[in-house]
C-alpha cells in the first residue's frame, strides 16, 4: 500500500507527519518504507539518520549533434518546447540543462544527426534507519526538473511494504509524479488563510487523480475555523487534527520525532493508519 503525503503549502509538516507515521508503523512490525520525494530539498534523512546501502545516478537523454551530418534545417529547435536547442545559420547550440529528455529532436531530425547522451541530473539513495526502509532522491544543483528522479525512486519501491511517499509541496509536475499512483493521499493543511487557499488547490488536484484522500489539520488550534468550514462544505474527511504542541516543536528542533518523545501521539498515528487502511479497502 502506498500512502502519499502532500500539501499545497510548504512548511505544513509533510515530512514530520510522514516520518511519525512511518515510525509508528515500523514499530508495529509492519514492513515500512519511507520515500523522500522532495528531491529538491530532501530533509527526512535529518530525522532518520539512515545508513545508505545503495545509490544510483539518474540521467535523462539529451541531444548530441553530429555536425558532419547536420544541415542546420532547424526542425529540432522547432519541436523543442523548452528552447533547449538553438539553430542559427552558422551552428546548433544545445542547452542540456534545459532539456527535459523527451526525445522529440532525435525523431524529427531528417538526417539522423542527433544521438542521445546521458545527462546526469541527480541520484537516488536506498538504505535503512532501524526498522524503516529509507529511500530518497537528490536533484543536482542547477538542474531544472525533478520528475525523472521521482520516477526512478518509485521504480525501486519494495512492492510488499507499506510505503510512505513524502511529496514536495505544491500542485505541479513533481507533486503529480510523487502521488499519482498511490492508494491514498493525506493532504496536510493548517488553519490559516494560506493553508485554506493552498488546500483548495490540492483538493482540486487530488480529485482529478481520483485517489481516495483525507485532510490532516496540523497546528489545528491556531488561526481560524475556515479550514473546517471548507472541509464541511466540500464533505471532506478530516482524518486527524494535531494541536500546536510545544513539546512537538521541541522534539522537532532536536531532530526527534513526536511519537518517540511524546507517547500520547502514538495512538493518533495508529488510528490514522487504521482509517486509511479501511478507506483503501472500501
Amino acid at each position, binding site marked *: 500500500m502506498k500512502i502519499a503525503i502532500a500539501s499545497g503549502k510548504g512548511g505544513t509538516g509533510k515530512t514530520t507527519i510522514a516520518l511519525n507515521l512511518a515510525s509508528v508503523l515500523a514499530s508495529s512490525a509492519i514492513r515500512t518504507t519511507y520515500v523522500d520525494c522532495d528531491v529538491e530539498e530532501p530533509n527526512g534523512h535529518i530525522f532518520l539518520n539512515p545508513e545508505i546501502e545503495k545509490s544510483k545516478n539518474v540521467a535523462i537523454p539529451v541531444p548530441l549533434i553530429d555536425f558532419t551530418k547536420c544541415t542546420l534545417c532547424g526542425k529540432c*529547435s522547432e519541436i523543442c518546447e523548452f*528552447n533547449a536547442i*538553438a539553430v*542559427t*545559420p*552558422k*551552428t546548433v*547550440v544545445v542547452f542540456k540543462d*534545459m532539456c527535459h529528455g523527451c526525445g522529440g529532436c532525435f525523431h524529427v531530425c531528417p538526417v539522423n544527426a542527433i544521438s542521445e547522451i546521458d545527462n546526469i541530473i541527480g541520484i537516488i539513495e536506498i538504505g535503512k534507519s532501524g526498522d524503516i526502509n529509507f529511500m530518497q532522491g537528490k536533484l543536482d544543483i542547477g538542474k531544472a526538473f525533478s520528475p525523472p528522479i521521482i520516477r526512478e525512486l518509485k521504480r525501486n519501491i519494495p512492492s510488499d511494504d507499506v510505503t510512505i511517499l513524502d511529496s514536495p509541496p505544491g500542485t505541479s509536475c513533481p507533486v503529480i509524479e510523487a502521488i499519482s499512483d498511490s492508494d491514498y493521499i493525506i493532504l496536510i493543511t493548517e488553519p490559516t488563510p494560506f493553508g485554506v487557499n493552498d488546500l483548495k488547490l490540492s483538493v482540486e488536484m487530488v480529485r482529478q487523480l481520483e485517489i481516495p484522500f483525507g485532510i490532516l489539520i496540523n497546528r489545528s488550534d491556531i488561526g481560524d475555523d475556515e479550514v473546517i468550514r471548507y472541509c464541511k462544505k466540500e464533505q471532506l474527511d478530516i482524518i486527524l487534527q494535531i494541536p500546536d504542541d510545544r513539546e512537538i516543536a521541541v522534539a522537532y528542533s532536536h531532530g526527534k520525532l513526536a511519537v518517540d518523545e511524546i507517547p500520547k501521539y502514538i495512538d493518533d498515528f495508529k488510528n490514522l493508519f487504521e482509517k486509511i487502511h479501511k478507506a483503501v479497502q472500501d
Partner: protein
Amino acid sequence: MKVAITSLESSLDSQIDATFGRCQYFIIIDTDSMEFEAIKNPSLSASQGVGIQSAQLIAGKNISALITGNCGPNAFNVLNQSGIEVITGASGKVSQVIEDFKNGNLKSSELPNVGGHFGAGQGGGRGGGRGRWRM
C-alpha cells in the same frame, strides 16, 4: 553591415530596450543604407528560454552584431557561437546608438554582462541564481 538593436518601439526614434530576450522590438538595420525592419518580439510571453529564442531569431537575420543593454549567458552563447558580435550597455535613442556604432564608439563584450533570467521580471519562477552582475 546588418545589426540588430533592441528597442522599446518600432522606429529609429525609439529608446533602446535594456533587456535582450524580452525586449519589445528588434530593429534589424543595414547601417550602410539605413534600411531597417522592426520585428515585434514573438517570445515576450514565453516562460523559459526566451534569450535563446530571441538569439536564434536575430541570428537568422544574418546580422553581424547585436546592440542591447543587457545580455545573459544563454543568449550570449548562441550569438557568440554564431559569430555575432555582442555589444551591451547601450542606452538612449536607437538612431544615436547606430551613429555611435558606425563611428566605432561602441565596444563589443567578451562575456555576458548579466546572469540568467535577469530581465524576466515577475513570474520567472524558481531557479536561475547564477549570479547577478558579472563585471
